[in-house]
């Protein structure tokens, strides 16, 4: 059978729209996740054992909140969040309705990765910066964050890829996107051709994200 004719029934406009939705969900969520997760990761790091603001209770409270959110399955979070999503975006539907749960669901995950990346920075670097008379703010911004940059970029990459699979579930609130398309057409209507196209596009998207991430990590590693 001719390969092109096999895909003749695929609605490419629909595919384009879905790709677009996925990208919008991915990048807007990612922007918010970095904006919220990076400071949260820094705070977790600072209060964690043997760090500058070491504080068992504060750290335990933060860590518990982070763990609770992380342990809620995303599909459940998507539904539980509906009232809050309406408050923030005015709607619980569509792409706008998917972004708040995506951000809430993924930020704690990203913050943990950031915390780990910061902890990878040699203690000696922190000590050296302290010995120069740096403030805690300077230690974070002038030494720890620049040194952890490769780790943070790797964390962003992993988070972006996790987001891609979460966006597939966002179809539950009618957000659209490639994952949603593949479920509705590929699975529910037995349109295997659509399923193949969407999965291939998702694979390409993930590959591209990973490649960009890896390139940036190498660039910032300076080793």
């Amino acid at each position, binding site marked *: 059978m001719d390969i092109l004719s096999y895909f003749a029934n695929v609605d490419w406009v629909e595919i384009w729209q879905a790709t677009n939705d996925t990208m919008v969900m991915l990048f807007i969520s990612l922007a918010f996740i970095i904006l919220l997760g990076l400071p949260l990761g820094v705070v977790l790091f600072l209060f964690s054992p043997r760090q500058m603001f070491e504080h068992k209770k504060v750290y335990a409270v933060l860590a518990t909140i982070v763990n609770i959110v992380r342990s809620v399955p995303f599909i459940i979070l998507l539904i539980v969040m509906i009232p809050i999503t309406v408050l923030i975006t005015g709607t619980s539907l569509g792409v706008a309705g998917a972004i708040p749960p995506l951000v809430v669901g993924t930020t704690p995950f990203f913050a943990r990765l950031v915390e780990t990346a910061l902890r990878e920075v040699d203690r000696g670097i922190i*000590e050296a910066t302290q*010995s120069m008379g740096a403030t805690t703010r300077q230690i974070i911004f002038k030494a720890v964050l620049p040194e952890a940059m490769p780790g943070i970029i790797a964390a962003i990459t992993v988070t972006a890829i996790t987001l891609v699979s979460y966006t597939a579930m966002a179809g539950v609130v009618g957000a659209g996107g490639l994952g949603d398309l593949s479920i509705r057409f590929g699975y529910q209507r037995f349109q295997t051709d659509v399923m193949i196209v969407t999965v291939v596009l998702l694979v390409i998207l993930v590959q591209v994200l990973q490649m960009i991430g890896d390139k940036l990590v190498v660039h910032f590693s300076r080793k």
Partner: protein
Amino acid sequence: MIEFQNVHKTYRVAGRDIPALNPTSLTIEDGQVFGLIGHSGAGKSTMLRLINRLEEPSGGKIVVDGEDVTAFDSNQLRRFRQQVGMIFQHFNLLASKTVADNVALPLVLAGELSRGEIDKRVTELLARVGLSEHARKYPAQLSGGQKQRVGIARALSTNPKILLCDEATSALDPQTTASVLQLLAEINRELKLTIVLITHEMDVIRRVCDRVAVMDAGQIVELGPVADVFLHPQHATTKRFVQEDEQVDENEQRDDFAHVPGRIVRLTFQGCATYAPLLGTVARETGVDYSILAGRIDRIKDIPYGQLTLALIGGDMEAAFARFTAADVHMEVLR
């Protein structure tokens, strides 16, 4: 001047107090290279970090140039730290910044100079440590010795009056160690900088230090000018360090000398006396014959010294002893 007044430090580990430094008093004069030598866990690292309060003392006072460092609030402490450079065993350079940016970091943090002034200062510093052509490289592209030179340039950037060296040469090979120590000696001489260094190698002490404190189990067990401590060690720990450096085993030596006839003495010469033709003169005058069993002629910082173990035989032994004692020589009769 750095004064430790009854300073002590205990760590609390798993609910138990572990003493790291017993109450210690010590004065380090301006412009000196002061060495702290000890095995790991002896408390030397704690002592060094107490000076710029990377470690907080459990009690006692540390006074630097008349100011009680232990009483500083966080702002005063930051300003004080800007006047105290520090270099590290593993260099602790920022891998994400170029050599020039690493050296500039303390100045950027202090925020007192303009970018142009900082660049000018960095160029000067890199020239001083001989790394001008490496300014744009990243630390990973440098050798260990070069990295430590960057560390030194960085530590000097704010024109500190004190330089703390934390095992600065322990990760370097002997040749690189020698060149880094030479640089430190140069800096001490030219900038009149007080250097406090910790090490576990007597050789480092011998090459650059003016005074040394030997530490063992959280206290100073021997303290004095390097020549005195090095040539006439009193405490067992000091003796071990000196023997390690000379690669001499006293017990082995005693066995070897058992079959040698006559008296055995150890003569220690310092300064000009090292090169005086004393042995021949004494041998001629007193008729005492000698053979050299062991010996070393070297330098302690800039002072030449010699230490010879001699077997003496025949002639007027008493007269020979008297001559040695009268000359500018330290004599120990071993047998």
